[in-house]
């Protein structure tokens, strides 16, 4: 029974992420916002062929440069 539950959990998470029924200012909303911001800021612009930012480093690349 627990295995079946474990298998269905990712499917349920995906379903709730795509069939969105949550209000603003809920923890689910915060999670979605974090995921979106992570995509926007962490994806290197070159991967998306960004016409305005190609050649600029993504946030990850920038952080790695600072560490080095």
């Amino acid at each position, binding site marked *: 029974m627990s295995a079946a539950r474990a298998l269905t959990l990712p499917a349920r998470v995906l379903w709730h992420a*795509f*069939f*969105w*029924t949550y209000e*603003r*200012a*809920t*923890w689910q*909303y*915060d999670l*979605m*916002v974090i995921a*979106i*911001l992570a*995509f*926007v*800021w962490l*994806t290197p*612009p070159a991967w*998306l*062929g*960004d*016409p*305005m*930012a190609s050649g*600029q480093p993504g946030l990850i690349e920038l952080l790695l440069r600072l560490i080095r």
Partner: protein
Amino acid sequence: MTFTGAIGALCMFPLRLIIDGCVALRIHPNVLTFVGVLINVVAAWYLATGRFVTAGFIMIVANIFDFIDGKVATQLGAVSKFGGFWDSVIDRFSDLALFIGLIYLYAERGRTDYVMVTAIASTFALMTSYTRARAESLITRCKVGFMERPERIVLFMIGAFTNRMAAVLWVILVLSIFTVADRIIHTWIELRREERAVRA
């Protein structure tokens, strides 16, 4: 309190002052709505010329007008059915202005791929509000789906200020498609439930 809730509460302090100022000056909310769209057109021009940061600041000003019109209407006792209709029609023009600005920018740079991404994103952004409006003529409420106008506007600002407009457009495109699909599915489920209840 969630962190998006905290950000909202923080933003309400300066907005409260602006709302009080507009109420004191007795500015009609429909005028505020119209001024908002005019400022958004200016923002669209800056997007079209690739000056994203300036466009971002202008978008903030435009959307202050957009945000406060309803609150000013309530405080002035000027809430009307026409005001609600005017607001939602003007909002669509504001949305389209920003998308057209970006389409112009990418077309001028010869980037047909991003012209298409922006055009499709704008189509689904419009369909997001159309599906809700049409659904709510059939069922009581159709407020499902993540990507509504406030999310879109905040994303545009983030894209403009951090020069990540391409990533923002992809997010708007994908989540707007899901939002439209959510609204169609939700309406179908609700209408089917109503039909069953009538038959029973």
